[in-house]
């Protein structure tokens, strides 16, 4: 059975090395500062006892006041899991550091989050839209997204 | 009974004798040759339909399904329906294609195959105490002619692939250039063994030399020849030119309508031609008990084609470097071994008595076994990727 880390427990483990990183410990997740995300990622992957080597999922959620990026991490060696969250305020240009340098598995997932939620990942080697085409107006999984059919230009329909 | 056995010979003699008084001997023979050409061309085209039908039905049964069975009784008119469909389809020439070469290629691929039929002896008959061979021309250098003419087809494939201005077609054409030329070599060398045993290049003489079919006298040659032929015909496992799952259909991807039909036709026509040649060279040609000679050849041709279908139903495709390795590192040495052995035998027993057949089978099995064991390392290499990325995908 995969053991989920409790938020408080994991927050202690992170604060020991990176005292400024943790914002809040929730019951099963830890919320960290976006600026510290990359350091936290390295810590989680490399420090013994944690060894989160497998990035299961990267999700972006639009909570209207802020964007949240959720990382589901698993350690295949220790068979335990944890959830890391990071919040970015402001709707115009949300930026989170990319963790591709730590887990290559984040590559396509971060591109997808960028495409559908519109969170930019600083340091991503190839941050382009994935599922939608370049020039698509807006990011569909944002709560304020309204599809204006008139405005959308379908490049594949042009002659 | 005798009439059925010798029907074609009797007809030939009758026509020539009947025309000679009015036209003269030379002109009568010329008319006879024209009639033969007409007959052989049409037999070839009808056989293509039989082959297409047979391939689809037998392949269907190999795959535990039925195959075409809607048009006509048992689906027997399916090739006709296909032909009608292909003829009424729109003929599309890509804008960027080299029109002259693009249009010439389907003709070019068709002509050499048709030429092969000139020398294939379909049977033999006696009329008026004289022996008549059922072939348009019984050339003294028959087999050499066949090999020379069939290699012209490669140029057509190259033309088709290049002129289409399509990258997949170009891949197919480049593979064709590599593969077809390579397999000419073992093909010719395998024939050399047969020629040594038969002592003649003429196809009729080769058939008549086969008191014991050459599949027993030349087992190694047979294996090499049939492998090389399936590569020449680009049939599975050597269908890299078309490579459905890789190159879509390879060199004729841009052809549609009747031009595609010509490629399709040529493919089955050459399958027919090579089945006939394999039957002639190795399976004793028209020879056989009870049945008329031409029926025997037909049975043998269909059997050879059945083997081709069987292989197609079973084997996956090999990669281009493996195809080339097979030609140069496996078949070529085997062919040389075969020629050497046959040549030594020719010196020791110039009449090639029957006891050489088991000897040759043993030698063949041993040679294939030894070569295969050695070839394993070539075929199944600890192969590393050739080189890593140097340039990004261009704009």
């Amino acid at each position, binding site marked *: 059975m995969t053991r989920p880390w409790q938020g408080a427990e994991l927050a202690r483990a992170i604060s020991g090395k990176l005292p400024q990183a943790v914002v809040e410990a929730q019951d099963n997740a830890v919320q960290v500062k976006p600026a510290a995300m990359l350091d936290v990622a390295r810590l989680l992957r490399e420090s013994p006892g944690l060894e989160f080597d497998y990035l299961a999922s990267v999700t972006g959620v639009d909570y209207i006041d802020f964007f949240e990026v959720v990382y589901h991490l698993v350690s295949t060696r220790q068979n335990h899991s944890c959830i890391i969250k990071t919040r970015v305020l402001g709707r115009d240009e949300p930026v989170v550091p990319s963790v591709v340098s730590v887990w290559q598995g984040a590559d396509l997932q971060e591109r997808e989050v960028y495409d559908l939620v519109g969170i930019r990942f600083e340091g991503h080697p190839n941050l382009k839209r994935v599922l939608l085409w370049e020039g698509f107006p807006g990011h569909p999984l944002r709560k304020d997204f309204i599809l204006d059919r008139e405005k959308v230009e379908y490049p594949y329909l042009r002659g | 009974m005798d009439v059925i056995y010798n029907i074609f010979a009797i007809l030939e003699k009758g026509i020539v004798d009947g025309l000679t008084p009015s036209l003269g001997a030379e002109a009568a023979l010329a008319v006879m040759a024209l009639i033969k050409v007409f007959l052989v061309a049409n037999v070839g085209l009808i056989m293509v339909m039989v082959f297409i039908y047979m391939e689809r039905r037998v392949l269907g049964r*190999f795959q535990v399904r039925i195959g075409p069975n809607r048009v006509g009784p048992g689906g027997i008119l399916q090739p006709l329906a296909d032909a009608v469909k292909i003829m009424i389809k729109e003929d599309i020439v890509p804008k960027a294609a080299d029109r002259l070469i693009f249009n010439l290629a389907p003709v070019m691929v068709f002509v050499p195959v048709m030429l092969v039929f000139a020398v294939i002896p379909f049977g033999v008959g006696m009329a008026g105490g004289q022996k008549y061979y059922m072939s348009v021309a019984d050339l003294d250098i028959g087999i050499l002619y066949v090999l020379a003419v069939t290699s012209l087809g490669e140029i057509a494939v190259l033309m088709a692939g290049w002129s289409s201005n399509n990258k997949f077609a170009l891949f197919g054409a480049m593979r064709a250039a590599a593969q077809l030329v390579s397999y000419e070599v073992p093909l010719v060398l395998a024939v050399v063994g047969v020629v040594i045993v038969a002592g003649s290049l003429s196809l009729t003489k080769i058939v008549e030399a086969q008191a014991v079919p050459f599949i027993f006298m030349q087992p190694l040659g047979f294996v090499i020849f049939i492998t090389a032929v399936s590569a020449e015909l680009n049939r599975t496992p050597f269908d890299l030119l078309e490579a459905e799952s890789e190159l879509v259909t390879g060199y004729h991807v841009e052809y549609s309508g009747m031009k595609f039909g010509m490629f399709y036709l040529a493919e089955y026509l050459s399958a027919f031609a090579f089945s006939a040649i394999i039957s002639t060279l190795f399976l004793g040609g028209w020879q056989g008990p009870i049945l008329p000679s031409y029926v025997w050849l037909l049975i043998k041709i269909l059997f050879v084609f059945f083997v081709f279908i069987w292989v197609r139903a079973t084997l996956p495709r090999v990669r281009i470097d493996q195809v080339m390795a097979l030609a140069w590192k496996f078949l070529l040495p085997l062919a040389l071994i075969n020629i050497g052995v046959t040549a030594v035998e020719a010196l020791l027993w110039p009449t090639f008595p029957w006891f050489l057949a088991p000897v040759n089978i043993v030698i063949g099995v041993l040679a294939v076994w030894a070569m295969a064991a050695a070839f394993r390392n070539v075929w199944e290499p600890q192969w590393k990727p050739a080189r890593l990325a140097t340039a990004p995908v261009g704009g």
Partner: protein
Amino acid sequence: MALKSQPIIVNIGPQHPSTHGVFRLRVAFDGEVVQDVEPIFGYLHRGSEKLAEERTYTQIVTLTDRLDYLASMTNNQAYVLAVEKLAGVEAPERAKYVRVLIAELMRIASHLMATGFFINDIGAFATPLMYCFREREKILDMFEMCCGARITYNYMRVGGVSHDLPEEFYPALRSFLAEMPARIDEYEELLTENEILVARTKNVGVISPEKAINCSISGPVLRASGVKWDLRKADPYEVYDRMQFDIPVGAAGDCYDRYKVRIEEMRQSLRIVRQCLDQMPSGPVLARAPSLVRAPAGAEAYGHIESPKGELGFYLVSDGGISPYRCKIRSPSYINLTALRDMLLGWKLADLIVIFGSIDINMGEVDR
């Protein structure tokens, strides 16, 4: 004088016999050697995640059918488990067994398709594919008996399954179980030792275990690299902790191992199905839950299962309403493509098709 050469840029797909759907690869070739690859997605993007935000929890089950349309049952299962976690519903015991049984049958069907199409990509003219179809047909017949559909099942519900298994299902399943092992042996006889297949797949498209984990690869592709990671064992859900089965792992991480792992997983799935059939208790198959499922506001849950293609996860966030606030689908096919470029570079065009086929992706799931 050195000759200057340019790479040929070829678009493989979106319409191509071997891209398993509408997938496009922009490949730069040097001769036949792949120099660079750029995968292009999105031709089948239907916005499932956005659609899910406007549908009730029950209605979303129909959307999950259309993700990986060759393994709809496991998609249903992953989603339903996530919602059960979110809303705190517990499925009855029998429902859990039924789900596991059905999911394992689905795994066999999906692996049959994967194997058949993989061999087809190598160039065998549809023969193994047809044999695989024949057995898949039997599984689909059984699913039709359960839920009336053959591809898009909509069978599982929050808190169980929509129907109990019908009477006619059991004899069909028993005859399938009796016949299937011999069929798998037959595939192996036809394929496993075939020298051409071995030559085409051995040492081709190797991916190391470290790389595979780092790229978040899951499923048979990960296990073929030698990582013994299967969520059915690592994080048992439903009743997998009561089942006896092995996780087949490969050694080299090449295409051949992926094929072997899939064949072996089919055997293991048959074992699980047999155990399910023996252990299955009687009782209801659907928990007493309101037909309009609601979850507490602010709840979030990540439910994941081992689908035939890999780890299929649903991350759901609730705002207390009748539909999820956010529904993220962690699709294995999509994430398994992360390492595609690394796997393809330096191989030939023919190998590209083989490697791509061995990953066994499904475009419905990649593009969602």
